[in-house]
């Protein structure tokens, strides 16, 4: 909430988001000036993918990244002790301490892009599609959170958080396009290693009536599995954390 004092940052954030959308639109326009569809996805459908990509990016920057950055910082300084001595669940605590409020602009901008895309879709979006979309979006956000927490808990010995951020933001750009365009090995990595396929392509598939029940079941079970693995990694990580005094 501290950020609300700095209102000019809102203007800067809006400007940056607008610029990012404009660049994305130029990219789409260039592709569609050369072809009518990209592996079966038409222009409004790719616009929907772009909308989900921006909105999900906003969520990541608003709640996931700042918390992970703070966690890694606390581990380095030894101040994680203050969290661990609280009576509540430590994983829950470290995951919701920070909110970067201005990134909400991206969520709004993504929703607008998505709205424009949906209006232009040839097939209308049914209730089942919309429900599937909402569910897939939630599952996707949880998967990205798990991915980040696993990475933060394991990688801080090797690198600084800026390095992970740069790597993730580079790879995140791959989600702007449906994963079907990527070669097999890359598609597999973007599905199970960095779960961008589940976080972006799958919700967009639901919105464009492409989602099969099989994919949805896979997404749900993968989310469940990832949550369990994250929990284990967190526990093991804590055992190796020795605090500031040790």
């Amino acid at each position: 909430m501290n950020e609300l004092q700095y209102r000019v940052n809102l203007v800067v954030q809006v400007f940056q988001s607008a610029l990012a959308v404009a660049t994305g639109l130029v990219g789409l326009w260039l592709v569609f000036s050369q072809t009518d569809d990209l592996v079966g996805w038409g222009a409004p459908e790719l616009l929907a993918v772009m909308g989900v990509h921006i909105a999900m990016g906003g969520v990541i920057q608003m709640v996931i990244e700042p918390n992970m950055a703070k966690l890694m910082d606390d581990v380095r300084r030894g101040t994680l002790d203050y969290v661990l001595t609280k009576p509540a669940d430590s994983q829950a605590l470290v995951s919701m301490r920070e909110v970067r409020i201005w990134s909400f602009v991206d969520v709004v901008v993504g929703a607008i892009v998505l709205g424009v895309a949906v209006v232009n879709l040839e097939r209308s979006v049914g209730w089942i599609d919309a429900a599937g979309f909402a569910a897939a979006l939630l599952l996707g956000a949880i998967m990205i959170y798990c991915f980040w927490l696993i990475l933060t808990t394991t990688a801080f010995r090797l690198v600084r958080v800026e390095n992970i951020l740069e790597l993730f933001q580079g790879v995140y750009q791959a989600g702007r396009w449906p994963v079907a365009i990527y070669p097999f090995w890359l598609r597999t990595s973007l599905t199970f290693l960095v779960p961008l396929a589940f976080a972006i392509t799958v919700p967009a598939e639901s919105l464009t009536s492409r989602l099969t029940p099989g994919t949805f079941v896979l997404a749900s079970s993968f989310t469940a599995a990832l949550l369990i693995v994250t929990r284990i990694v967190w526990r093991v990580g804590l055992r190796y954390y020795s605090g500031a005094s040790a």
Partner: protein
Amino acid sequence: MIAYTRMYAGWARVAILEQFQYRVANYFYMIGMVAEPVIYLVVWSTVAEQRGGAVGGFTAGDLAAYYIVWTLVRNMNIVLTPYAWEQRIKEGELVTDLLRPVHPVHRDLAYFGGWKLVVIVMWLPIAAVLTWIFRPSLDPSAAEIGLFAVALWGGFFVRFFALWALGLVTLWTTRVSALFELYFTAELLLSGRLVPLSLMPTWVQTLADFLPFQWAFQFPIETLIGRRSTAEIWLGIGMQALWTCVAIGVTAVLWRRGTRRFAAVGG
């Protein structure tokens, strides 16, 4: 002159030793950066395939060559970010710099130049993997490789001085991020970074001809992938020299006025 040579060698050595220590960090950075051209490459190869093999005169193999060379050129033209000036001013580093007898641009130039040697070494395995995966059609002559080496460093100089000059704007105002973002967006679209300019509409290409961006990006790439004649390459190197001189001139003027202003505020 000898004093300067020794200073440059010293700073470059520091950069090399320092950056080799942070190998993992450098690799994280480079892999994150390689994602960008791989995405463009996949998208445009898909388009080329759907159009029956080529788009804007580029086959899938040509595109692979373009974007693989892209990764080296991009790594080479990473220079001091204009955002660094905010910290330099806030933390008082600039004050120390002003007390030194040597213009700080020399230290930055030597440091980033030295770092590039590390980058080139670390880039080789990445290039090998990308070549193995994407099968570029790349068959440069010895002369082209030699000219490419010149153009590669030419691109570094253009971008180094352009961004140094841009960063100096921070001496006047602290609200610089919008300006920087605008600059980087223009660069993305008009340099050949997003797509080769030949895939852009003609008016965009004309516009790009009047701007420095493509000389730090598309031009070095095209010297190696054989899309420019020897005469065109020499002309391009001349353009790089011209833009470097322009940027140095702007840097000199902004530095003189900016530091005078900065000193006035501090004193």
